[in-house]
């Protein structure tokens, strides 16, 4: 049997048999080389209570080349792109070793959620937010967990319609700040976009004067 197939089959079986790690891997289609993994957000983090889905693609030269993984669930984390779910993790790139498995890689992802590395960010805006105010960052991350990953605070979970979501909170901004600039006659989503880009949060907000914000808002 093809060594790659044998290995992947065994890895999938291992995950099925092992209930303690809480890592689940399932097939997406008929091919064992495109999988969907999921794991619960680690305890004591803003991701606690959420359930995170990961897209897994096994390349032709697996296990000698790393698996391709990205988050399917939107997640607010410095090392994960908030738009695409792309992950910045060394073992998925040059630090990959053929000894690593799908399970151990998923566990590494889980631990990445516990200890973000904002100095080597995938999403620079999120990383800035993390560096500026960890408290505010965690609030936003928790909110994302609630609305996207079915976190505990949210009764509605993943079924929440898009319109009912609080865009201001998703962007990790202060509602007061947004409404202040909205009051100057700018569209709400434009204000959110600009303030997010300027990292208008926590102590950083006082460093950015209103003129600068308005200037950005006036740009087409």
């Amino acid at each position, binding site marked *: 049997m093809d*060594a790659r197939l*044998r*290995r992947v089959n*065994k890895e999938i079986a291992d995950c099925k048999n092992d209930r303690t790690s809480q890592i689940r891997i399932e097939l997406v289609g008929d091919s064992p080389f495109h999988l969907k993994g999921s794991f619960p957000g680690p305890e004591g983090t803003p991701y606690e209570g959420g359930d995170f889905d990961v897209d897994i693609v096994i390349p032709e*030269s697996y*296990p*000698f*080349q790393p698996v391709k993984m990205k988050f399917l669930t939107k997640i607010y984390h410095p090392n994960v792109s908030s738009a695409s779910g792309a992950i910045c993790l060394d*073992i998925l790139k040059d*630090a990959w*070793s*053929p*000894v*690593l498995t799908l399970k151990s890689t998923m566990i590494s992802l889980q631990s990445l959620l516990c200890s973000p590395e904002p100095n080597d960010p995938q999403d620079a805006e999120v990383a800035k937010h993390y560096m500026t105010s960890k408290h505010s960052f965690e609030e936003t991350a928790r909110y994302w967990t609630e609305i996207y990953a079915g976190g505990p605070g949210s009764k509605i979970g993943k079924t929440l319609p898009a319109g009912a979501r609080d865009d201001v909170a998703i962007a990790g901004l202060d509602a007061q700040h947004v409404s202040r600039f909205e009051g100057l006659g700018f569209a709400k989503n434009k204000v959110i976009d600009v303030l997010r880009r300027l990292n208008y949060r926590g102590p950083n907000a006082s460093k950015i004067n209103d003129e600068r914000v308005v200037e950005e808002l006036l740009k087409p």
Partner: protein
Amino acid sequence: MSSDYDYSDDDGDYYDEDMIDGTQDDYSDDDNMMDFGGDEDIKVPQKGKRKSYEVDYESLSQSAVEKLIAEDVEYIYSVCGVDESIASLLLRHSKWNKERLVEKYMDNPTSLLVAAGVTLPEPTSSPTQRSAPTSNNSSSRRTTRGASRLLTTFGGSGSKTKSPITSPTLTHYTPRSFKPKSSDPSDKFVCPICFDDAPSLRTLSLDCEHTFCSNCWAAYLASKIRDESEHAVKCMAEGCSLVCPDPFIRTVIGPSATSTEPGQEQENAKAWSHFQELLVRHYVASNKRLKFCPYPGCTNTVSCPSAADKSSLTTIVPTVSCGARGIGDQMTQSQSASGGSGGGGWGLAGKEHRFCFGCHVEADHRPVVCPVARMWLKKCRDDSETANWIKSNTKECSHCQSTIEKNGGCNHMTCKKCKHEFCWVCMGPWSEHGTAWYSCNRYDEKAGVDARDAQSRSRASLERYLHYYNRWANHEQSAKLSLDLYAKTEKKMEDMQITSSLTWIEVQFMKKAVEEVERCRMTLKWTYAMAYYLAKGNEKDLFEDNQRYALLLPSHSLIIHLRLHLRIPSDLEKAVEDLSELLEGPIEPENIPGLRQKVTDKTVYVQKRNEIVLEDTAKGFMEGRWKWNVVVEGFDEPEKVEY
């Protein structure tokens, strides 16, 4: 490197009147070596003496470089007393800098061995003295073991010859004690990567004892070597920093390696040869005196010590050739490495592997030196289209010289920068227009003429650039079409052999001429780039000469300048165009002897002109005669000259 050429004393003779009679006594030795008549093929004389525009270089095949590598390994082996495979790893780690390696090794061998991935970071101290291997045949060093016996035989003292360090002075390097992964010898080995547990499995490990099956090792090495071009492949275990030594790699994917996987043996062979090439490439890349031939599929290396130092690139243009011709499968090796005209076919397949040792901008950018050629190409890339657009679509404010595009509205312009108000039509100040708005009839008034003069002065630099650029680009375009010309000429040569009594060897004059035309076009092309950057001081000579000989000269032309400077009575450029025309023209069977004579003469003529241009510019660089109008890397700052 110029010591063997005595150019310094004829510098003063350049302006001697007796040399302007066009006889060019200096170059008459070329004529003696040329055979104009008869049935001889025209050949560039291979003079024993190198010309001043040529550099000394040597072409090395892959195996020749491998020999150099072996010498270095041997050296480290003898100095540091480490096994060859370790010496190789150390050299690769130190980027083949032998002196630094030895220094570091003498300073702290352990840290160097660890950094190079030869030994594990913290060897557990277990000073079991083992007999040092006496043989250097290290290929047998990594033992392969049958899987069924794998875990049991580990305990045996003779099964591992781990440390290949042979020097008796290195007693501080101690082998690590072996820790079996399982104490139960009946435990079956399961490869942690492919989960194969077949009893026939061959297993391998480095000194770190991370054991995997040979198929996984082979697939891993092949993937690292072929997909990632990695020459220092680390152990497969996570976080393990041991590097696979060459004998290990040979055992796994070398010619004698066998595989149970279908198709793997072929993959192995490819990976093994790629690994050899990677080592050579790494060696060449680490050595400033060496450069890999950039032509696709070519594995030759050129050694050019005189161009190794970057500062030498201000005095020489190291155009070299690896000696091979053609691309890919059609490649042939020719013996003459230095610009010879022999060898193989021609056209694309016969194209000589010529390249510049000092830069990547272009294969042959003589006579201009690398930094200037690079600067010119960058400028062309950045500026040409923009400059053309600016020229045709904008004007400059007559007050502050800001470039302005008029994209609508009336002719009453207000400069956004300096608030100067002017008329777009006559460029004169708006205040003088009075009530004659929107229909300027003041085009000839003084203020308007003055303003336009100022504008044309500021446009002059743009014009100047475009002047050189267009001429440069013309030759570039012609050179690109040379492949067509090759094909056409080849056809003509065949026709000639049919319609006349000439033999194959006798029609080679056409081929020779085409090659010469291409070569001259290259030179001409780059003289325009050079002329653009030459400081006015150089051209002053030109203007003085101009007056002395009362010749009509277009300004800023290096070609003309060189001609005058060297008393070359005719123009290389014109001769090249004439020759091109002869080659492109129709061939009547009855005219062939005449044509042949004409083409042959013209070929020799342009060849000599070309050499003179190259010689003079090369000498100029060695003497530091050329000054630039811009800051050029490695040259003195230019004097302030108004352009």
